[in-house]
């Protein structure tokens, strides 16, 4: 198939349209506003709806409403905007509605800056809103993967009736790469949600959707149902990529943009005859605990690299569970570490550990 040169944000938008997304609500924020701009032009061409909202709070609630109808709906934002959406996301998770969020992460906290960062990991994977809920979180490291994971995001959302988050960073959003786009999905072939969706009670009992139960026992039952679902997702949906791990005696762990940088670090170190491998989580929740634990048994140490003060490293430690020492290297403020500085960090560690 023909490859197209596309910007990350636009590739995600086009992939969403091809996945059958016909409703998109958003409030502009750098570095992902190209998604909104692209959708404003593209959705009318396919009979869809684009709406620029008055705020991220309105956005997430429009997503809630549209998701109630069972149609494929998406929004996109960047870190401060994602913070504003948290209450609504908690409601959507509680109401068990399928929809897709894209957070193109930038430096924080606060207004931060507009450069790529990974400091929203906690918020994305541990629940930024209130209550016991989970999002499925997918982290692409190339634009092709961003396109493919966008397709997967809609499918997983439908399959589990759960919101799915594509956690990219400013680098993925802003860079250009050749991508191969999937074919346009036929809307009529999408999963049927008529058993629960709000469509007007035509010839049936009314459907009612709500994330609340005033009776604590009832609410506990709802929560048990959520937890059973999360356990199932956790078992079935762990995804990751390995690179040169077969004979690895040292392991590097990183996701998203860092994942691709670490590949060249691994190659550099391999040239110096250092047997290093890469483990790149693709699902950040569910975190690929099982495979990482296995790998950690046969390595001298694990080095986690992130564009944050060290957030995913907590999950890495849980996975490794004492089987190897876990070290961390990170940059903050929207700085993308260079392969060289990561290599130095690794080599320094090697000296210290020896």
């Amino acid at each position, binding site marked *: 198939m023909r490859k197209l040169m596309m910007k990350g944000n636009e590739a995600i938008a086009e992939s969403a349209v091809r996945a059958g997304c016909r409703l998109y609500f958003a409030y502009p924020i750098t570095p992902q506003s190209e998604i909104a701009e692209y959708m404003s032009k593209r959705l009318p061409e396919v009979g869809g709806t684009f709406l620029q909202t008055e705020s991220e709070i309105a956005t997430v609630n429009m997503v809630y409403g*549209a998701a109630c109808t069972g149609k494929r709906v998406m929004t996109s934002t960047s870190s401060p905007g994602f913070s504003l959406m948290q209450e609504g996301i908690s409601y959507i998770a509680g109401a068990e509605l399928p929809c897709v969020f894209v957070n193109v992460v930038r430096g924080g906290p606060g207004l931060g800056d507009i450069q790529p960062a990974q400091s929203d990991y906690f918020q994305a994977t541990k629940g930024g809103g209130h209550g016991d809920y989970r999002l499925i979180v997918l982290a692409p490291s190339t634009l092709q993967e961003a396109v493919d994971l966008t397709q997967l995001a809609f499918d997983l959302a439908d399959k589990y009736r759960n919101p799915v988050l594509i956690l990219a960073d400013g680098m993925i959003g802003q860079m250009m790469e050749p991508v191969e786009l999937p074919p346009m999905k036929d809307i009529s072939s999408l999963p049927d949600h008529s058993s629960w969706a709000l469509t007007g009670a035509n010839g049936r009992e009314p459907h009612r959707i709500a994330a609340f139960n005033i009776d604590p026992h009832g609410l506990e039952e709802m929560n048990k149902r959520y937890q059973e679902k999360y356990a199932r997702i956790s078992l079935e949906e762990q995804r990751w990529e390995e690179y040169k791990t077969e004979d690895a005696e040292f392991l590097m762990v990183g996701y998203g943009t860092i994942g691709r940088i670490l590949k060249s670090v691994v190659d550099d170190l391999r040239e110096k005859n250092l047997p290093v491998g890469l483990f790149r989580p693709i699902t950040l929740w569910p975190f690929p605990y099982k495979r990482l634990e296995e790998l950690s048994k046969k390595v001298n140490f694990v080095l986690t690299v992130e564009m944050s003060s060290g957030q995913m490293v907590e999950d890495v430690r849980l996975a490794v569970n004492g089987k190897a020492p876990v070290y961390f290297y990170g940059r903050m403020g929207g700085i993308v570490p260079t392969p060289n500085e990561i290599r130095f960090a690794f080599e320094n560690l090697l000296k210290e550990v020896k």
Partner: protein
Amino acid sequence: MVIFSRPKSLSEKEFTYCPGCHHGIVHRLIAEVIDELGIQEKTIMVAPVGCSVFAYEFFNVDGTVAPHGRALAVATGIKRALPDRVVFTYQGDGDLAAIGIGETIHAANRGEKLTTIFINNAVYGMTGGQMAPTTLLGQKTTTTPYGRNPENDGYPFHVSEILSTLPGVAYLERVTVSTPQNIRNAKKAIRKAFIAQIKGVGFGLVEVLSTCPTNWGMSPVEAQKWLLENMTKEYPLGVFVDKVGD
């Protein structure tokens, strides 16, 4: 011959409202209008947070509950997904005029083909009688124990007057249900606000001045009287916008 029965669009579920509260009357009027317009099977309701949080169970239509203040954003999402359905929100003053005023103004300004029933009882009901944006000057609430004082608490908030300036609004009327005649008027207004949506003219809202005997600390009869004597002075009844015609 049955001359009076439960509207089809009201469910069997018992109301959870206090004695003398107007929510029950307004629910019935909405259900009657839905029945008369023959739209029960294509209507979707969005309930608010507050005393009427269960409203989505009281109507025999598809429904959901929005986060506090966000009913008009949720309704916008539903309506944009299903433009040929009839979508309405039911919201109190805390929900619509305080935390959700942004969503309210922007949905109205976009001229969303939605209908909103806005219950203004000048107080926060469910949380136990605190000041609302619509609380009258001098009115005592649990957070204005000395009476609402504009120096500290600002002035009563006039939702209908503000929304009436927006071109997206197709029908806007302030009513009350405190006398039989007022009830008949209120029903006409609700009907028109639905027709504004069905005909695709724009956004329709009916503000209903209502009682909260519980938090006003009055008997139902005193509450009716207080409403007519005080609330209608601050919030005059009447049609603000009518682009629907007859």
